[in-house]
């Protein structure tokens, strides 16, 4: 009898505990629990990276030490690596804002011709591997061989122009051009959704267009710009491939990312060691994360004033384009100038290189050697059907996972008053603060442990581990987009729906998702593209069966055949360029249509 009573008491206790959780979380139990699935993984990996800095050897071996932190007292780090990293981070952000701000306005808020084509071309920038861009710029700007240096020297009657890109400023320039699309897409959604009635009100009050932009439009997209700046700063200091090409690999212009990469990814057999210096890798990871977390703090201060940025309301949401008139030619020239620097020149360089038996400067002699020999057997060289299958799986799965978990997390962060929401947003941003390579390294060790204790778990050596690494790594980007998009939809729409009896899921799926669809499409596309070209995590996690295209092209370059690597890169650009154009024509056409349709419809 007592046992029966005990069972009932136990069940009662469970029920009461469940009720307490329900009361605490209210209707948000679904988004909270789903978002914590991803966030808990992020936290676990972050703690693992931190833990790595305190263990003497392999992270699964016993013992603790502080010796790895002695790295901080190294003058090399303080005098060269950290200052260089900061120059690269800040410089990159400045370059991206310089290009992306005007581009986003021109392509989203004006009647500039060929907007969809330009957007597709900007998106193509992403798929050109960073090392190819760097190689292109080495050929363009170099004291001895640079085409621009030679041209300028001839023009000015000088022997040479002593400008090189093998320094942190050069890295910032190339990286800034490469990351402009990420800033562009981050602010495009909010820019599109700006309510013109506010601008019209300013116009009616006698404020000119410039001041309207500065005092009305700019503050409304400020969270997106700040989010983009922070995002790009974090990206810039954790990308290794461009710094590696421009002096990072040599140690002459070292940055934290290249130091981290070459710590965990030795380039040659080290006669002194057979193990990765795990602790040092962790310290580099933490050092990269520290400034990013600081930047994140400022971002949260802006986010705290969210109510100022709501522009999509239930009352007369009518985005409208600005007529540029005769200034449209200047607009087109600006877009073309950016595309020339970021797309045309690097693509020309890779196409040129891919058609030659060996890399050489443009000349009559070189022209006579152009052929397609590097494209022979390219399918096999790139890895055949297995690599294509892995890449497609990666590009499809990662955006779906990222968008799903980002939306859930943003819902909690932006739409609830739960005390944990800011903590959750900070955790969502962590993957961007912690370099992907450190996460990949932590996942590798977890895979190692899993292969020993849970051999049935398909983790190590599978595409799954690369999918997990990319999904967690892109969560920061996904939540920036979904945060910004949700911020612009005022809660009154969903309040109306709830009054009418709609469930939480119904509100999310039938009201909010359609409203922020443009942002979601951009986020999905962008995530797919970033995942497609991501190389450091894929390289580290690649074993026998999970090679993906970007890692394959990088290996070709790394092993010394630039011509074949360029042919592979050209094919990569072609495939994704076509895919991107098709998607944008499909999705972009609908977006433009719906926006114009909204203009024609009477408000409300």
């Amino acid at each position, binding site marked *: 009898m007592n046992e029966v009573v005990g069972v009932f008491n136990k069940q009662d206790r469970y029920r009461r505990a469940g009720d307490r959780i329900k009361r605490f979380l209210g209707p948000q139990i679904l988004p909270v629990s789903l978002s914590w699935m991803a966030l808990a993984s992020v936290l676990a990996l972050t703690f693992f990276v931190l833990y790595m800095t305190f263990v003497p050897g392999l992270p699964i071996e016993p013992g603790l030490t502080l010796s790895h932190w002695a790295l901080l007292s190294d003058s090399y780090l303080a005098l060269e690596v950290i200052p260089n990293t900061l120059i690269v981070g800040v410089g990159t952000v400045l370059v991206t804002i310089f290009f992306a701000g005007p581009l986003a306005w021109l392509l989203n808020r004006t009647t500039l011709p060929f907007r969809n084509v330009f957007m597709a071309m900007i998106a193509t920038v992403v798929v050109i591997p960073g090392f190819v861009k760097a190689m292109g710029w080495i050929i363009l700007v170099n004291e001895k061989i640079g085409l621009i240096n030679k041209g300028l020297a001839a023009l000015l009657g000088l022997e040479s122009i002593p400008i090189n890109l093998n320094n942190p400023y050069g890295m910032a320039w190339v990286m800034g051009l490469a990351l402009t699309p990420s800033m562009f897409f981050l602010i495009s959604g909010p820019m599109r959704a700006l309510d013109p009635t506010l601008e019209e009100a300013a116009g009616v009050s006698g404020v000119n267009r410039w001041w309207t932009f500065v005092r009305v439009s700019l503050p409304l997209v400020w969270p997106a710009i700040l989010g983009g700046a922070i995002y790009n700063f974090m990206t810039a200091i954790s990308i290794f491939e461009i710094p590696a090409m421009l002096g990072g690999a040599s140690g002459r212009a070292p940055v934290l990312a290249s130091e981290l990469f070459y710590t965990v990814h030795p380039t040659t057999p080290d006669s002194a060691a057979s193990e*990765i210096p795990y602790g040092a890798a962790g310290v580099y990871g933490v050092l990269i994360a520290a400034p990013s977390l600081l930047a994140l703090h400022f971002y949260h201060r802006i986010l705290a004033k969210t109510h100022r940025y709501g522009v999509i309301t239930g009352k007369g949401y009518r985005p409208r384009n600005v007529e540029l008139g005769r200034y449209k030619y200047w607009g087109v020239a600006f877009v073309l100038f950016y595309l020339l620097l970021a797309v045309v020149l690097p693509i020309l360089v890779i196409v040129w290189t891919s058609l030659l038996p060996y890399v050489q400067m443009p000349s009559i002699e070189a022209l006579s050697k152009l052929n397609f*020999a590097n494209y022979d057997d390219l399918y096999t060289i790139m890895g055949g059907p297995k690599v294509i299958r892995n890449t497609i799986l990666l590009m499809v799965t990662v955006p779906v996972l990222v968008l799903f978990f980002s939306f859930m997390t943003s819902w909690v962060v932006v739409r609830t008053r739960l005390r944990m929401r800011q903590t959750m947003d900070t955790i969502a941003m962590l993957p961007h603060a912690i370099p992907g390579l450190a996460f990949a390294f932590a996942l590798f060790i977890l895979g*190692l442990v899993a292969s020993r204790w849970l051999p049935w778990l398909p983790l190590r050596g599978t595409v799954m581990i690369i999918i997990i690494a990319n999904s967690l790594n892109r969560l920061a980007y996904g939540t920036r987009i979904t945060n910004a998009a949700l911020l612009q939809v005022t809660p009154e729409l969903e309040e109306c729906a709830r009054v009418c009896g709609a469930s939480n899921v119904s509100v999310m799926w039938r009201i909010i998702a359609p409203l922020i669809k443009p942002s979601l499409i951009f986020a999905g596309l962008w995530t797919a593209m970033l995942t497609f070209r991501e190389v450091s995590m894929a390289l580290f996690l690649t074993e*026998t069966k999970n090679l993906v295209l970007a890692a394959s092209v990088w290996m070709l370059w790394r092993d010394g055949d630039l011509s074949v690597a360029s042919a592979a890169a050209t094919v990569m650009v072609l495939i994704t360029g076509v895919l991107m154009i098709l998607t944008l024509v499909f999705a972009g056409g609908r977006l433009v249509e719906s926006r114009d349709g909204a203009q024609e419809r009477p408000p409300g």
Partner: protein
Amino acid sequence: MGNFTKSFLLAAVFILGSGVVGTYSWASPEGKKALADLIGQAKKEGVLDSAITSGIVKAQARLTSAFKKRFGLDNLEINLARGSMSPKFVKLHATLKSGGTPTFDALTGTGQEHMKMKEAGFSTPIANWKLLLAEINPLVGSGQVNPKDVSPSPFSGYSFLWSTRTRSFIYNTKLITPDELPKSVADLANPKFKGMFAVPPWTSMWEVATLVYDKEKWLKITDQTGRNAGAVLRYGAGMDRMLLGEFAFQPTNSYYYWQRKAKDPTVPLGQRWFTDFTPLTKVLHLVPKNVRHPAAATLWSLWMTTPEAQAIWQPTNSQANAIFGQSAVDKEARKSLKASGSKIITWYDSPATIQRFKWFGTDEGRAYRAELKKGLTQRRKKKKGKR
């Protein structure tokens, strides 16, 4: 029996004997049985996970198909990874140290990597390796090549030679003549070569040079070499920048020269051996401990030493086997090296050289290596005004 008859008989016995020894000296029924057992086991395993260098990916399909055909392993699933081997060995160490199962059943790498694997007890000794080699590699089976050349000391029975890498000067013939080139590695310290070449970010060649030069003297030479270097670049990137005209020459992997010439005979490149020493790296296959498919891995490691495999992969990357290879590329490499008179050095020539290699793993050796790296790449020196 007259003298003539005796001589005739002796000659006949010698000729027949040498023929028998030459052709079948290592082949035996035991070897045949060992091979049959191994093949049977590989069939049961059904899978082989290994890796090849990116340079030979063009030959991947033909290699796997020829391998299957050679041993009748039609249903064997072969997964070959590619890319740099050093990170794979580092991960392999981590895996085995933690008691895990390696993802690669067989792996190719340099002698240095194999030494560390063997020292750590992570390499698998191959049972009956001499008998198996005689069955699988016709050069060994016919007695032309001693099994000890294929599986050299100090990793006899554990690792099997696939190819060799040597370093030499490769130069842009449009920018420099052979007479203007430095003669030796030590000559790179001469200020007249300032800015004319790039050095790699690793010090392997400068480490092995301590077998020839006094350590302290070599440290100074390396430091001056670093000051003269126009850039620090990986070998491949250095070759590209040299072809673009930024640098006149490179101390680099010799096979790049043959590789580029094979692709375009008109490429403006020349090659010359160092006069002070030629570092030679042996590249071998091994089967790590605890692998899932040891029989298939053993067959793969041994078969990759054969002329059959070499005829498939060598045209794609021109890497020679300067020790026992019989192809035109191998013979040309040996002939050219011999003609240069350069002293070939490796880490595993003698107990003394092995001792020096191990010394680099001690605290003192690590500190010395760090100094070499600082000198070569000139890290940390710029701010202190030493440049």
